[in-house]
């Protein structure tokens, strides 16, 4: 009997701690599949964030380091400057990437560091209890915006891909969504492109994934996927934002 589906080589057997319906597990697997397909597991060094994915190093079977909250792009810079030929990527949530770590992201991108950022946009701070993130939608209720985010006082959600697109060192930016199977297949393709860009030494690449956080959105898994399809995508349109490959 032919095996048609199995665990990627780059994943461990560890049980994930993620909540039911969370997007991190799918995103982890997509990354592992792409690392396997490119046959670079033994060349890969990943930088895990502070956020729900802090334990990513328990789930990936390649070299991984933790980093302080938001500092992953700086840590990745240090690694990549020592090993320009290895595959170096960061995996970061919205709070990690564009709130506390905004400056590290911006300057890492501006130096055109030849790394890949996997950006998990779930519109909230998952780990600390569903507080407002820089990507929380206008009107979206979170534990620190009980009446809904008010752009007049809390600002508008930050569109990271659009923000980075004017930077010359940034070569590939794509926003994808994990709400449907068809879109998950697109997400995998986007990751392939971004990692291939790194292998080709093109410069900075980032894939933003819109992912569900049922627990902190107060929804079940199914509702949370619909929320992405109907609401999140409206503010964060999917597609290739920049392709200079």
């Amino acid at each position: 009997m032919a095996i048609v589906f199995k665990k990627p080589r780059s994943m461990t057997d560890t049980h994930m701690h993620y909540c039911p319906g969370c997007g991190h597990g799918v995103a982890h697997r997509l990354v592992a599949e792409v690392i396997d397909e490119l046959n670079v597991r033994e060349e890969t060094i990943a930088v895990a964030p502070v956020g729900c994915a802090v334990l990513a190093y328990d789930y990936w079977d390649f070299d991984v380091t933790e980093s302080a909250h938001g500092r992953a792009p700086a840590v990745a810079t240090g690694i990549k400057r020592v090993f320009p030929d290895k595959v170096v990527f960061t995996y970061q949530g919205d709070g990690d990437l564009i709130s506390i770590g905004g400056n590290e992201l911006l300057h890492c991108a501006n130096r055109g560091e030849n790394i890949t950022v996997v950006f998990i946009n779930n519109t909230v701070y998952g780990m600390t209890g569903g507080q407002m993130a820089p990507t929380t939608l206008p009107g979206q209720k979170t534990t620190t915006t009980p009446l809904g985010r008010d752009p007049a006082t809390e600002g508008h959600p930050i569109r990271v891909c659009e923000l980075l697109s004017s930077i010359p060192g940034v070569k590939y930016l794509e926003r994808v969504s994990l709400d449907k199977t068809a879109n998950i297949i697109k997400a995998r393709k986007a990751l392939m492109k971004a990692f291939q860009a790194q292998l080709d030494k093109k410069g900075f690449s980032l894939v933003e994934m819109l992912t569900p956080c049922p627990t902190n959105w107060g929804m079940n898994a199914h509702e949370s996927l619909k929320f992405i399809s109907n609401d999140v995508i409206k503010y964060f349109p999917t597609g290739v934002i920049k392709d200079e490959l």
Partner: protein
Amino acid sequence: MTKILIKGNIAIAESAVIAGCRYYFGYPITPQNEIPMYLSGRLPEAGGVFVQAESELAAINMVFGAAATGARVMTTTSSPGYSLMQEGISYIAAAELPCVLANIMRGGPGLGNIAPAQADYFQAVKGGGHGDYRLIVLAPQSVQETADLTMEAFNLADRYRNPVLLLLDGLLALMSEPVELPKPDRIEKYPKEWALTGAKGRSRNVIRTLWLNPDDRVTKHNCHLLEKYDRIRNELIKYETYKTEDADLIIVAYGTSARVSRTGIDLARQAGIKAGLIRPVTLWPFPEKVIRDAAGPGKKFLSVEMSMGQLVEDVRLAVNGKSEVHHFGIGGGWVPTEVEVFEKIKELV
């Protein structure tokens, strides 16, 4: 034996290169700017990498990344920048990554000024960032010793898998003296099987500071760190004594303050006053025992430091009530003169 005339800052920079450091990440701040300026040319020439980071926060995390690969790496800064690095230093200490840091101290608190000071002592030896951790802290008093201790700093960092801090006041960093640079044969090599190099032919390596599992707790990690710190305490304490045997008054001082105090002690001796000096070279681990053993009834201790009184607290702890302990110094640009030190000795004895 060829000697060259260089500043303390350049002694750090060139000795680091000789010690095999090929990666430097830093952000400009006076009075240590000569280090990044020098290395921005020198490192590429030596096949290394210089990156001007966007902040000290980024710089220390770049150091984290490079250190995680097992490479010899350094950052340098001055007081306000060193404050900004504290988060990263706590993580580096927790992850047990070897690296070398230098803080060229200037006046504080706040933006303070750019004059020499020794007011970051607490921050250097008591932690600075969060959690129970220690840095090895080395305090040279001359440009020659700066060069030698820079080489040693890289060896100690690798030997103990621990960040090592060179703590200098701005005067020492900007002062030129003839120096014989350390020889590369002083480089000590330690295996780094823990480093992130890609999981080729081995199982994956993970560098972490989070310990959530009940059987894998932070308490356990802290006990492991303490064991290492105790080993460092047993193996590493370095100090110099000067005329302490018969001294009625012993000055404890490091860096520029120690150097000036020594001349002040000579003046006192000429005036018939028995004064001596204990100069810690390692500020952590602190040479507690030599101070404690020298203490006793009738003897006085004086901490001379370019701060409002920080080192004096460790002297008091070491003396443990057996002698009077006094402080002499101001932070923010004041540098003691030998005559001032002599006058202070006279006042006390």
